[in-house]
């Protein structure tokens, strides 16, 4: 088996919503520690793809294997426990809690020790662990700030930090830099990518900003109408004729009639 070393193995994955095809014959393998960028215009099926891996959507047909184990149609909360985590396009944090408490809750759920009643949430061991994570993600200075008052970029970092406390082997980032100002984008990605490199986590991330994609990924998967039209290293992918026409061309302002299937919004 030449795919024995893949973290994620996807075979013939299909998804359709009432006749509209959102994913068509998707085949791919992700290796440990690999950073893969997913690009494509709105409605190309990127988020559907991510949502199928974490179990938010059930595929119509096909196989998703994580570390050799069939996880097709798994519940999102079980995906977390076997080592697949995700962050969100719009940060999903606990707005009324402090940064520290956000991470403490995340850590206690990840370690499944949420049931120990006598130990307070902020036990010294958990607090130390959270402080380590905060240091990696440069969140220490916001330790006691309520999440709802954080700047977008910082909240994004917190969102990602909460996804990685369970030490996943595969992390899916849905547009990590959306809503983040241009000056902050690279700083944010530097922090995240460096922290993840240390852990050896494979990363699959959806991104619209080609400068970000080019700089951080080992490989690009370009989506168009639910299909992968190109799967190659960035220097090749970004010169690919189909990618230029269907993904990049659109970005350069070439007017196109939007006849692509609508992507269902997730939260």
């Amino acid at each position, binding site marked *: 088996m030449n795919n024995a070393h893949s973290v994620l193995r996807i075979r013939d994955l299909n998804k359709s919503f009432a006749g509209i095809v959102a994913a068509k014959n998707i085949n791919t393998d992700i290796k440990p520690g690999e950073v893969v960028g997913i690009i494509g215009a709105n409605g190309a099926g990127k988020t559907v793809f991510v949502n199928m891996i*974490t179990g938010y959507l059930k595929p119509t047909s096909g196989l998703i294997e994580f570390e050799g184990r069939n996880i097709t149609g798994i519940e*999102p*909360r*079980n995906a*977390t*426990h076997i080592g697949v*985590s*995700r962050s*969100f396009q719009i940060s*999903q*944090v*606990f*707005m*009324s*809690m402090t940064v520290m*408490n956000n991470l*403490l*809750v*995340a850590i*206690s*759920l*990840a370690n*499944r*020790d*949420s*049931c*120990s*009643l*006598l*130990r*307070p*949430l902020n036990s010294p061991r958990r607090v130390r662990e959270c402080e380590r994570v905060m240091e990696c993600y440069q969140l220490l200075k916001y330790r006691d700030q309520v999440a709802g008052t954080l700047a977008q970029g910082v909240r994004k970092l917190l969102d990602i930090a*909460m*996804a990685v406390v*369970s030490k996943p082997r595969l992390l899916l980032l849905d547009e990590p830099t959306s809503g983040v100002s241009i000056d902050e984008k690279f700083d944010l990605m530097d922090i995240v990518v460096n922290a993840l490199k240390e852990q050896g986590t494979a990363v699959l991330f959806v991104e619209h900003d080609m400068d970000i994609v080019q700089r951080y990924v080992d490989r690009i998967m370009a989506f168009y109408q639910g299909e992968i039209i190109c799967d190659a290293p960035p220097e090749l992918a970004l010169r690919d004729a189909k990618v230029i026409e269907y993904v990049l061309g659109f970005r350069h302002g070439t007017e196109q009639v939007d006849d692509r299937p609508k992507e269902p919004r997730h*939260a």
Partner: protein
Amino acid sequence: MIIKALSADRTISWVVASFAILAIVGLMVPNWVLNGTMFGLARGLAVLGLLVLWRTGLVSFGHALYFGLGAYAVALLEKYTGVSDVFVRLAVALATAAAVGFMLGFVLRNHRGIFFAMLSLAFSMVLYGVLIKSEALGSTDGFSVSQTTILGWQPETKYPLFLTIILTGVVAAVGMQIYFRSALGHLTTAVRDNEIRVEYLGYSVAQAIHIKYVLSAALTGAAGGLFAMALGQVDPDSMVNWTVSGELVFISILSGPGSVAAPFIGAVAFEFLRTFAFELAPHAWQLIVGGTLLGIILFLPRGLWSLIERLPMRQERDRE
């Protein structure tokens, strides 16, 4: 070790101290004050049950269901087995409410907001309907509940029952404080803030809500049992009707969500507010009670507890 860990928590030591003082004060006050305080503390325990749900962002408009179940469990236990021991009564009241809460929890855990509130109301009105239509269950008159005994001893005054209510209150308040501090307890706020995130962190939101719901039902059931013992009777209108659920929500707002001690303060205050309002204006006492609620919502949105939070010695402590 555990005692040491618990006394380090300021809320716990304050709760224990205040209840101890209250127990001593109970020896010195006239009977009507003792009675009023007992009713207040028992209702406070029920409101503590509502607080568990409130912190998760859920409001139940049907907690009279569990209050009534606890009360009727005590009355029916006596009718059919003759048992009047305080511990058996309390245990049966709590267990009955918890069991029903566990079953209904499977339905309610999938609902939020107004749907959760109205569905709880519907369930409570089913019990009300069954009770008033059934002769065997006492119909509209209910039953009387004989004086509570303690391990075979029949006390002459109500003070031992008062003490039992205080002890139950302390255990419940301390237990809830430990729970709120724990990771599972912090999930209340987490679930209220963001359910999707909780699911993706690997925990079932439905299960979290179910646990809280059963806990809440058990506390309210115990409260109903104690209330029946203090009052010496059970009847549908003062135990199970929707007005009882409304009263509990009223007291929640009066108390505020700030602390596990707040429900007890709010409920005792409510009890005496009503007594005095009735004394002052027998035909318009609701006006006074309603006006008070309006005042609380306008000026103390976090309830009576926010007054205590503002005490100078507390602020100093928080600054430390």
